[in-house]
């Protein structure tokens, strides 16, 4: 009934591993948006145009840190086609994605903080005219001292880039201790310590951000945008435009790739709305690729120190992790990112005692934020390489050692995260078997190696970004006598297939064809709120909301049909477009007839479904980051060939196993696995968002080294190795049909697995990514000179983390709360992103 994969061929009707026989779930089907995407019919934001539409450009700062002395529009005003300007004072209210970091302005007020910070918006009849006028705008700056790195930020508390933050130029500083880590280190036979570095990189979505705004009334504006988070954009617009939320409509167009890069509310979105209200005409802005590099919000560069106590048999007794994040010029998701560089260390291997310290610094560079894996790939890289070294030093097999340490299913970790299903063991077994690990690891000839690493990720964050008691996802279904079902949901299609997931779950429950479902998504006027397409939340959260709405619709229709068929409603089966008696399938009617019965009996038909995640057991400040209804797991083995003469290497094959709980559509799951392998390889081998200082006499600017797609290296068709992917299905009770996430998890093991494979190949360590051939060469040269066979950072900055917040572990009989709030100088509450008390009062 659903679109067969190949109409001319019979596909095998595989049952789910749980033995359940689904209509649709778990079988490959064509995505609901598949046809539109191959015919050019999908309308991305820049594909939209409206009568009388005009174009906008932003004048961006050419200096990294300065006071704005003067803005001179006189030349620009005279340019042909120019219609209007906006500057900072017209939008004084600050905004930002997190309630604790409302530190952005639609256009800079007083100060610019990085090259690329927008100062003026110009609208003109054509895009070219707007561009030319933007060049004629003159901004006079008075330069301020710039900060380029975490070390500089630590050493330079004044002048501050922002007038808020934990201290000086440190946006965030935290220290948390779960259990008696000192006692844990004392139990250890050996203590290992490493310093590692993960360079920043960016999402590089193929689609450049674009927004179109139009007005219908003096006080009513509609914004179409390439955003992953229409709901948060809606909130920011309300704040900056000072209009009631009910007068602002945000429609997220399908995104031409997001990867986290379109999850912040952006200056250009706010300015387009403001300009449309000013001019009374539709306004479009489409960013250049260079601007996309400066919008960034990508992977934070993170320096890490990791210290672990281990018994001879590989048992981990204690860990102390320190991370230092280079946040760039604004808060963005940074406070959450900071916590994420520590939170998920505990969900893969037993870590009975754990301490985590972290700082996030403001620097005068494009703001960092969430990229696929948000804050977790960096410490995962450090941990997995560190474990590889530990195993090597103890003479243990790295795979075997991990297998011995797995966190049990249905347990609570030392930092109070509740783990449900846990398929990591099966993942490791699959890649170990598949790659011939046991025979080949450690035994391949010089220059040829295998590396193994694992990872885990959230299926959505346990807490919303701002405190509230409302659902994180909602779905509304509308059924009528046509037999068609209209599905309304706030979720946003960013390429990951979320439209298909909510449609398939609904079709599964109602037993109808996907083509009989009409989707209306990501429209704040029409669809129930969904928090957005980030933190791999949509399949689980919007999926559960769809499941609930569909089950309610099924019950309603069953009641109508049961009366007519004279059988009990609960014995009716919904499949293949029919509603029939389970034991006697002849007794039945078509789906459409059943809906008609229900509509006749109950009137107009509609149901809703909502999802709120279960409460997590942690009750300490910081416990808000890390909880998830379900964790996905992945393991990878990477096979690499390295030329020891040059350091040039090539990843030849990847074995990736991912525990997705339950596939909704295996073809789409495969796409996410392969896409994650690809993006992880890019991060391991080449991708970096790096800056250089221009000479002092030329403004001392910190400019992006290569804001172009040619020089920002990313893997091409020719760079992709073979990939053997194993889908592990360990259904989670919290997932719809047991489904967990797949969009981000499989990226995590890639970077450490590549680093570990290089060690297996040539016996040297590169403790940072991306790994360039010269780093391998330098490590080999160091070894040949009798020095440490390693390339990587040497030390972690000196930071006084003060007294950590102490939280006894479940094992120690803790209750999830901290015991020294006063001493640690930490405020109460679980929210890291907001204070519950403030929220209840209604403050942001």
């Amino acid at each position: 009934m659903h679109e067969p994969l190949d109409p001319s061929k019979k596909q095998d009707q595989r049952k789910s591993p749980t033995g359940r026989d689904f209509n649709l779930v778990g079988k490959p089907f064509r995505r609901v948006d598949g046809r539109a995407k191959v015919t050019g019919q999908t309308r991305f934001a820049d594909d939209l145009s409206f009568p009388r539409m005009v174009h906008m450009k932003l004048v961006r700062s050419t200096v990294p840190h300065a006071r704005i002395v003067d803005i001179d529009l006189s030349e620009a005003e005279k340019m042909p086609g120019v219609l209007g300007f906006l500057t900072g004072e017209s939008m004084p209210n600050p905004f930002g994605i997190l309630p604790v970091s409302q530190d952005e302005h639609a256009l800079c007020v007083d100060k610019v903080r990085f090259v690329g910070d927008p100062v003026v918006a110009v609208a003109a009849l054509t895009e070219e005219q707007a561009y030319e006028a933007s060049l004629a705008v003159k901004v006079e700056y008075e330069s301020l001292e710039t900060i380029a790195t975490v070390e500089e930020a630590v050493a330079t508390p004044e002048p501050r880039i922002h007038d808020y933050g934990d201290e000086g130029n440190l946006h965030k500083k935290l220290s948390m201790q779960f259990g008696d880590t000192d006692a844990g280190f004392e139990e250890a036979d050996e203590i290992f310590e490493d310093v590692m570095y993960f360079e920043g990189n960016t999402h590089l979505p193929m689609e450049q951000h674009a927004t179109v705004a139009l007005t219908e009334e003096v006080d009513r504006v509609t914004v179409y945008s390439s955003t992953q988070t229409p709901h948060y954009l809606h909130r920011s617009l309300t704040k900056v435009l000072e209009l009631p939320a009910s007068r602002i409509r945000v429609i997220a167009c399908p995104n031409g790739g997001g990867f986290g890069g379109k999850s912040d509310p952006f200056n250009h979105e706010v300015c387009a709305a403001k300009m449309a209200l000013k001019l009374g005409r539709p306004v479009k802005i489409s960013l250049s690729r260079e601007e996309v590099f400066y919008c960034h919000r990508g992977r934070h560069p993170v320096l890490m120190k990791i210290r672990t106590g281990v018994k001879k048999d590989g048992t981990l007794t204690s860990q102390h992790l320190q991370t230092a994040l280079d946040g760039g010029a604004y808060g963005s998701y940074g406070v959450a990112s900071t916590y994420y560089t520590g939170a998920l260390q505990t969900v893969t291997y037993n870590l009975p005692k754990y301490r985590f310290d972290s700082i996030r610094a403001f620097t005068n560079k494009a703001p960092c934020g969430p990229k696929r894996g948000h804050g977790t790939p960096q410490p995962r890289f450090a941990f997995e390489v560190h474990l590889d070294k530990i195993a090597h030093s103890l003479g243990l097999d790295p795979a075997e050692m991990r297998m011995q340490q797995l966190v049990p299913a249905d347990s609570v970790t030392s930092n109070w995260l509740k783990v449900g299903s846990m398929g990591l063991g099966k993942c490791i077994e699959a890649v170990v078997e598949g790659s011939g690990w046991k025979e080949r690891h450690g035994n391949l000839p010089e220059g040829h190696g295998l590396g193994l690493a694992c990872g885990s990720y959230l299926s959505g964050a346990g807490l919303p970004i701002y405190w509230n008691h409302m659902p994180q996802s909602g779905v509304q279904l509308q059924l009528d006598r046509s037999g068609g079902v209209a599905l309304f949901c706030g979720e946003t299609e960013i390429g990951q297939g979320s439209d298909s997931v909510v449609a398939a779950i609904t079709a599964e429950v109602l037993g109808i064809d996907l083509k009989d479902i009409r989707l209306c998504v990501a429209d704040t006027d029409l669809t129930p709120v969904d928090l957005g397409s980030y933190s791999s939340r949509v399949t689980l959260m919007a999926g559960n909301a769809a499941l609930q709405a569909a089950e309610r619709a099924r019950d309603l229709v069953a009641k109508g049909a049961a009366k007519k068929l004279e059988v009990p409603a609960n014995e009716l089966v919904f499949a293949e477009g029919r509603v029939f008696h389970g034991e006697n399938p002849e007794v039945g009617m078509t789906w459409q007839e059943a809906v008609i019965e229900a509509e006749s009996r109950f009137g107009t038909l509609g149901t809703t479904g909502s999802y709120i995640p279960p409460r997590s057991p942690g009750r300490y400040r910081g416990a808000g980051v890390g909880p998830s209804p379900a964790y996905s797991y992945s393991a990878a083995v990477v096979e690499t060939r390295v030329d020891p003469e040059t350091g040039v290497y090539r990843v030849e094959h990847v074995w990736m196993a991912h525990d997705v709980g339950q596939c909704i559509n295996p073809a789409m799951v495969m796409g996410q696995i392969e896409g994650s392998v690809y993006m992880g390889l890019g991060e391991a081998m080449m991708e970096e968002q790096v800056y250089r200082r221009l000479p002092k006499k030329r403004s001392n600017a910190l400019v992006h080294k290569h804001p172009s797609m040619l020089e920002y290296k990313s893997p091409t068709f020719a760079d992709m190795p073979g990939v053997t992917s194993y889908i592990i299905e360990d259904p989670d009770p919290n997932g719809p049909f047991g489904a967990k996430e797949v969009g981000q998890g499989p990226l995590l093991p890639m970077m450490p697995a590549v680093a570990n494979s290089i060690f297996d190949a040539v016996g040297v360590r590169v403790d940072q990514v991306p790994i360039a051939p010269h780093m391998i060469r330098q490590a080999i040269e160091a070894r040949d000179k009798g020095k440490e066979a390693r390339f990587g950072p040497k030390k972690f900055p000196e930071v006084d983390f003060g007294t950590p917040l102490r939280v006894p572990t479940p094992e120690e009989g803790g209750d999830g709360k901290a015991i020294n709030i006063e001493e640690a100088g930490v405020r109460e509450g679980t929210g890291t992103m907001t204070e519950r008390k403030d929220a209840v009062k209604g403050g942001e």
Partner: protein
Amino acid sequence: MDSQDQKAGEHQQVFRLLNVNGEPHQTGFSVHHSLLEVLREQLNLTGTKHGCELGECGTCTVLIDGQPVLSCLELAAECEGREITTVEGMMNGNDLHPLQEAFADLGAAQCGYCTPGILVTAKALLEENPEPTRDEIVSALAGNLCRCTGYHKILEGIEWAAAKMRGDNDYTPPKEAIYGDPLPGEGGSHA
């Protein structure tokens, strides 16, 4: 210079008869405008996308006289008398081209933004070389970036479409591309 050419504002306007997807379009635009701009903004053929407008990403690829060309680098004024094909020209009536069919079924289009450029490039390849090897496909597409798929499904989609176009109806895409590889216990190792 075309006699119809004239000055408008600062930019010289030109008028050209462009042949796009087999249909003639009389079009006026500034002389320096790229084919990309004219297709999207004058002809409203927004199926052709852009990722850089600098010739770096391949997203804007269209066919000119059957050859893949980066439309962001091509002056529209020079395209008169040439056969331009965009993704909108690939369907046959209401039926998808075999490449479109294969991409949709395998999930070779995720966000779908790189897809139009890749589809037309693959079309040109298969018209010249109906049975390309993996390496030949890879080198034909080496200039097209995709951030979503990891490229494998695109390659498998092109191979599947090539088989269909050759009339080889027994060909099926590798099952692993859809279901993942059989677990080692179930179907042997792939080492």
